[in-house]
Each structure stands twice: as C-alpha cells, then as structure tokens.
C-alpha cells in the first residue's frame, strides 16, 4: 500500500474545477513526479494534500489513515513536509533560524541547544548553504531562499516530502546537486522517505523520478515510468497540444 494516497480528489473554486477526480499515490524509497501544463492543478493538489485547501470531495490517506479533515500542522507532525512554488520562507529570521524552528518543532523537546543546532547546521549543509547561515532569508536571492525552504522541510523529519518546483531559480549545476541529494535521501533505507516532485524541468524529472503522474486540466491522464509517460499519446497531446497554440505554454513558469 502506498504511503500517501490522494483518492478521487475534486477541488472546485466557484465554477472552475481545479482538480477533477485526481488520484495520486506516493511510495517510500523513490521519487514520484507530478507534471502537467500550467494551470493543470499541481499546486492545488499539494495544497489539498498538506491541508491548506479543503477538497470539495475525495480523500487523502497517509499511511492508511484518512487525514482529509486533519489540520495543516497536524499533518506536518505526522510527517508531511513541503516547499512552496512561491517562496514562503520566514523572511525576518536567518537561514539557520528558519531551519532551527522546524528542528525544534519536530524533534524531542528535551534536546539540548547544542544538538538542535547541530541538526540544523547539518540540514543547511546538505543543501549547501553553510556560508549564509546567519543571513536574513528575506535578503537572499530566490534560489538560495528556495534551498532554505528545502532544508526547513527536511528538518521536519518528513516521511513524505512534497517539492513544488525546487529547481526554479537554480542553475544547472545546483539542480543536478538537488537531484543527487533527493536520490540519496530516498535511497537511504533509514529515512524511509517518499518524495513527490512538481517540476517543469523535464530532464530533471525524467532523471530522478521512478514514477510520474501527469495532470492535465485537473485530471490524471497518465501514470507510469518516465519512459512510459514519454511515450503516452495523451501526454503528448496535452503537452504539445492538439492545436499548435497550446505548445507555446509548455515550460513557462506559472
């Protein structure tokens, strides 16, 4: 059974159907991709899974437990962590304190100061931000702030990590490093970590994901390995468009 399952999720905003019976499942030990053209509903699905949006209908299950009605912080404590497409860092705090807040909330209360600090520094080190630990995050460039968010999410001791376009604002080298980091994390059996990745950088997605869900107009149109998905005719139609105008939007940031 999958660790995280979103089943038949429907999300309506007035007349707009952002998610239309979308089902996604995420397994531990691998990176699962979630791709689709702009406005397909990827971020909405993230918001439903993390509890920021209550779905119109459908259920979200985590480790077999129905969490559709659970609050955001409750889900986080259960082990669901995420990053945001539009930055949501704690801007007035330093990079180190951003991570430390998460460590303090998600590790044992009786931990000594020193141990909390060590863990927080370790997380910053993992994403390569040792140098800017004391810099106020609001003043960092977008790419670095994005990495702070990643370190903060990792500090929550997640069992499922939801990443919303981690590569935007990063250069190619850094993107590769993030890919390696993710593969390393899920490969480590002690972590028992599942990753759900929303990404526009196709070479990145195809490189790290074991399975990919493709979302279009709120519907899941294909699920499979990168090779299967790339060969899928529905996916090709969604991305390249049945008429030539749709193709122009592929890869453009939302």
């Amino acid at each position: 059974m999958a660790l995280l399952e979103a089943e038949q999720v429907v999300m309506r905003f007035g007349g707009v159907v952002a998610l239309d019976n979308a089902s996604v499942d995420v397994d531990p030990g691998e990176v699962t991709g979630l791709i689709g053209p702009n406005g397909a509903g990827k971020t909405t699905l993230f918001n439903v899974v993390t509890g920021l949006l209550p779905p119109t209908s459908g259920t979200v299950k985590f480790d077999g437990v129905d969490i559709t009605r659970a609050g955001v912080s409750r889900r986080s404590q259960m082990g669901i962590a995420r990053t945001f497409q539009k930055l949501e860092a704690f801007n007035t705090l330093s990079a180190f304190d951003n991570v430390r807040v998460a460590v303090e909330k998600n590790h044992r209360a009786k931990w000594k100061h020193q141990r909390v600090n060590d863990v927080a520094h370790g997380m910053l080190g993992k994403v390569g931000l040792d140098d800017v630990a004391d810099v106020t995050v609001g003043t960092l460039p977008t790419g670095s702030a994005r990495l702070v968010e990643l370190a903060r999410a990792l500090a929550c001791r997640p069992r499922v990590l939801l990443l919303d376009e981690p590569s935007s604002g990063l250069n190619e080298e850094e993107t590769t490093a993030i890919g390696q980091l993710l593969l390393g994390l899920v490969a480590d059996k002690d972590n028992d970590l599942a990753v759900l990745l929303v990404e526009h950088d196709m070479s990145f997605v195809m490189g790290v994901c074991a399975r990919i869900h493709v979302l279009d107009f709120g519907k899941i149109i294909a699920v499979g390995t990168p090779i299967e998905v790339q060969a899928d005719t529905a996916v090709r139609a969604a991305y390249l468009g049945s008429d030539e105008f749709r193709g122009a939007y592929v890869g453009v940031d939302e």
Partner: protein
Amino acid sequence: MTFGLRRSVVVTAVVAVAIATVIAVFTWAGTPVTAKTFLNATYIGLTLGALWAMYATGLVVVYTTTGVFNFAQGAIGVFGAFFYWELQMNRGWHPILALFVVVFLFAPLLGICLDVLVMRRLRTAPLVVQLMVTVGMMVFLISLVGTIWNANTPRWVNAFFKDSGGIDLGPAQLTWHRFIVFVTAVVVAVILRFLLYKTRIGTAMRAVVDNRELAALNGARPNMVSSLAWAIGSMLGALGGILIASELEFNPSNLNDIVIIAFAAAAFGALRNLPLAVVGALLLGLLRQHTETWLNFGTNFSKAHLGIAPLLLFAVVVALPQARLEVGRVVSNLRRRERYTNWWEGLIGCGALMLCAVMFSGGWLNFGIWDPEAWGGPALNSANAAMALALIGLSLVPLIGWAGQVNFAPLAFAGFGAFVYLKLAGDTGNGYWIPLVGLICAPLGALVALPAARLRGLYLALMSMAFAQGMALIFFPHEWVIPRIGVGRQFSHIELFGITFDDRRGYFLLMMSVFVIGVYGLVLLRNSRYGRRWMAMHGSQAAAATVGIPVVQTKVVVYAVSASLAGMAGVFWATVAGNLSAGQDFDLLNGFQIVLLIAAAGVSIPMAGIFLVFTPLFTGLSHRLEDTGNVGFLVEILDQLVVLGPGLLAIGMVFNPRGAIFEMGRGFSPILPWRSDARAEIAAENAQKREPEIGELGLERPFTPEEVIAIDRRLGILDEVVPKEGYGAARS
C-alpha cells in the same frame, strides 16, 4: 454551494437571542409600549442605522477595491462635519451650497490626496503597517480637527428642514431630516452596488484588488481606480458626518466613535458585501434605539446600550467561517541586518539608561529647565507617567513586533490588571501579587483572541478594538470595579522588598528597573524557541503550519502573553496615577496612541518602548515652560507635537515601515569604532541601491537595461555575472 445556514451562525444567533432575552427581562425599564413609542424608536433606529450604513458602505467600497481597511473613515466624517459647520453655521452659507462644497469638492479632493500621498503605497505593505497608518491617519485627522476648531467649545449643526415638521407615518412622526437621511442611505447603497457590479469601471475596481498587474494588462488603470475608490469613500464619510452631526452631541471623538459601529456593520457583510453591510447597520440602529427606549441598565451600566456594536462585532467574528491560510503574502522589503546591537552593547545601553534614571530622579539632570524647589512635582510626575506607558508598550512587542498580530486594547488589559490588583492587594499594596495579576490577565487575552485567531489578522485588530470599547463602556464604569473615592488614592502605593514606594523618585527608579528587566526578559524570549516560532508565524503562516506550528493556538498564546504583560504593567500605571477614570483613561484614542507610538518607534525591538515617553514628557515640558512664563511659541509647538505627533509618526510608517529605532541603529552603529561589520553592511546596501518594484515594470513603457538587470537579479539568474559582492556573495 449549499443554501443551508452554517451551524456556527445558527448557534451564535440562538445564544445571542437568549442572552438578549435574559438581559431584557432583568432590565425592563417599564416604558409603556404603545404604537407611538414603538414607531418612534423604530424611526430613530432606522435613521441611525442608515447613517451608519453610509459609513459602512464607504468602508466596504474602499476595502473591496484597494484592500486597505480604512480606520480613518469616521475621522474623515468628522472633518467633513466640522468643515460644514464652519461654512454653514459659522460663515452663514446656504446649507445646500455648504453641503455641495464639502461633499462634492472637499471630500473627494481629500480622498484623492490621501490615496496619492499615503494609501496607495500601502498596497503591498504588511497588515501591521496598513493598520498603523490608517489608524494613525484617524488619530491625526481627529487631532487636527481639535486644533483647528477648539474641541471643547459647544457646537451644534441644524438639521435639514428642521422647522418644517415632518411626515406622519402612523401615530408617530418622521422628521424631514430623518426621512432624507434614510432615503439618501438607501439610494447611495443602490447606486454603489450598481456601480461596482454593473459598470465597466466597477468591474475594473473589483479586478484591481485581486490582481493589479493582470488588471492593468487588461486595460484597467489601477491608480485611477484606487483614487476613485478613496474619493467615493471619503464622500460617503463626509456625507454621513454632516447628516449625523445634528443627531449627536457635536464633538470630534463622539463623531469618531461611530466608526466602530460602522466596523461592526461592515463585518456583518464580511467586509465585502454591500447589501449585508447595510442590513447590519440598520439592525444595529434598531437594536440600539430599542434598547435605549425599553431597557434601563441602572447607573452602573448607564452606557451599556452603546456597547451593542462591539457585541455584534464579537458575534459576527464568532460566526464567520475559518479563514484559509494565505499563501504568497510573505513580508518583504528587508534589509540584510535585522539587529544592530550585540548583547554587551545592549547591556551598556541599559546601564546608561539606569544611570540617567538615577541622575534624573536625584535632580542632577534637570537641564536647568526645572526649578529644584519644585523638583518632586511636574518633572517626575511626567516621567513616571511616561515610564508606566513604556511598560504597557513593552507588552506589545511580542505580539505586534514578533507575531505580527495587532492589539488596540493595551489599556483595557492594563486596566483589567489594575482592577485585579485592586481586588487582590488593594489595601496593602503588596507588590508580590503582581505576578499573579499577570497570570489572571493571560486567560482574558486568550479569550479575546480565541474567536478571531482563526480569521485574518484584520479581524483580530477589530476584535481588540471592540474589546477596548466594550470594557470602557460596560466594565470599567461599574462602581464595584474601581470604586470612586472622594479624596485620595484609589490605588495604594506598591510595597516591595519591605519598601513602600510612596515617593515619586522611588517609583521612577522602580519602574526604570522593571523596564530594563522587562527589555532583557523580552530579548531572552525572542532568542528562545518560542520567540523564533512567533517570528516564523509572522513570516508565513502557511509555512509555519507546514512545519508543524499550530497557527491558531500560537496566536492565542502570544495574545495571552501580551495581555499578561499589559496587566502587570497596568498595576504600575494605576499605582503611579493613584486614580483611574473610566471616562478618560480608557478612552480608545489613548490606547491608539500607545500602539501607534511604539509601532512607529520600531515595535520588534523591546528598547523601542522607551519612545513612549514622548507624550507625557512633552506635555510635562510644555507645562513647565508655561509655568516659567517664557518662550510661548515653544510651548505652542510642543503642545501641537503632543497632539498631532503620534498620528503623524504612524503615518510616517508608509515610508519607514520598520520604525525609527532601526534607522537610529543603522545610523549609529557604523560610527562605533569596533563595528566594521556594520559599515560593511551599509556599504553593501548602498551598492545595491533601490531596486524598482518588479511587479510594476513593463506596464506603461518598455524595460530599461537597469530594470532588466534588476529583474534578473530578483529571479536569481544573474548570479554568475555579478561580481562577488552584493547578492552574488551570498551564494558562492
């Protein structure tokens, strides 16, 4: 969308009706119920409601189109009413001409000026700044009216057609003035509804608030739309002010109090729904007039019927559905360095402060202004009043400064603390009870925050205002709460460590010590996991929740902490003054002044509390100068500063949202020889220059090369090109 009412709404309504019934049974005044009395009350109630509806529609129009909740709406009305009085009553203009000049020339101009000079810049500002600036504007306008037209002179404004009798509707009569009021309010509401939902410009107005850039690309002109909204809002305010002026006692604060009622009405329409806001206002008017007619609350609760608006606001807030955590509203505009002092510099600063306090209370630091003979008097009195306010101000630091939640009721909490202390240790003045006072005040804070904490921050601010108003009208005037004493002190002097602090010097030193300890305690709190958690929540509530911080609970806790600190500070406030008066000390404007001053000083830094000495010290100084009988113009300037200063300073937050103390630290720390790091920071900042607002670029003309660089830098794609300084240095 379901058509059934939400359960919370039904429950609230049932509870409210039940409570109202009980109150009505116990306080029935015995006025004979006849068709005439009933209709009379109904007519007056509807008239009042219609007037409030004008204010409320003004609020809603500005809020829906600009996203700024205009606390100054009532103050604009006051300004309009006084200007009308000047033209019509004082200069003898024809009423219609005066009305036309004020409502159709002066008011729109005022609105446009407000928008262009101040409000337009608030669009992307954090909520705390928006609130401080609009409340600052309200305080400023009210004080300005008081300066131009002496507020203590009794005035009145004639009702329209006051000699022509009225219309007979059933057994009772409706005066022409009231008839006009009612018709005007309805017509205005209908026109506005039509304007917003059926016209092109109305669509543009509603579109701009959702997405300014997108609306601009589609041909709406955001700046024009926002000016139009402010002009309309201001016209409605002025019209309401003029029409209501003949119904009420004509003075600035009385006319301004209306705005709380308008807030309640607007909240009834969830701040966005015009028809519901009008219904809310009419409901309030009817409730108010019928309570006044049929119920008698006795002398202890003589103003209780005025408390209906705060109560309705409370009920509405309880009934509103939980707000979603918003994504994409992160605090921006930060400098690289948040703090300008390290711990030992802070310690030296506190030491210096204590030294000054000792010298001041000893009389060695009197700048030759104060007469040594009169030493124990005015100077120390002012200083003590100042320190008490500074202590109350400290309680706002964790709440406003770190957690980003607003509380306009610090004096209500302080007063409650004073009340608890009076009941616990009133006769002995035993100071060891003070911590217990803090413990008792905490749940009250939690109680105030609880219903509003799950909503957007604006509601918490409104709720605190309703709480302050409710306490001032219903709780504090009660004889049992703070008994009046003919002569002497209500609050006996504090006794601590075997010392009775019964002279002003002792008090001053005691309070200064408490202040310094408080500052240090707060610094420790900020650097603890709790302080960090609160600041994280301020940064992004959505992200805080996703790392496991329960946002609603955290807000309630911070509110409780703040209330507890305010309660303890209130003990000093009350014992220094000796007496508190329900009518004056708990006036809403006094509470606003504390909040505005500390916000303008830089509320995230505890030491900013010391800036609250502003009002009492300047007042003392001006009194002193007056006594010595020289430099009259200086007295004049000081007096004006005291009155206009808090509002002006708060309005200044548009340009310097973080507060004065940061600017001072920024200017001061590079001077210190050992602060080469600060010098480097400033240099790096200057090198970066001011970047243009990215979101606005390209709308009106093509990008310039500099703007392209700025955009690239914001997107983080220029890092390889930029040399190792500025943004690039942080990454490598």
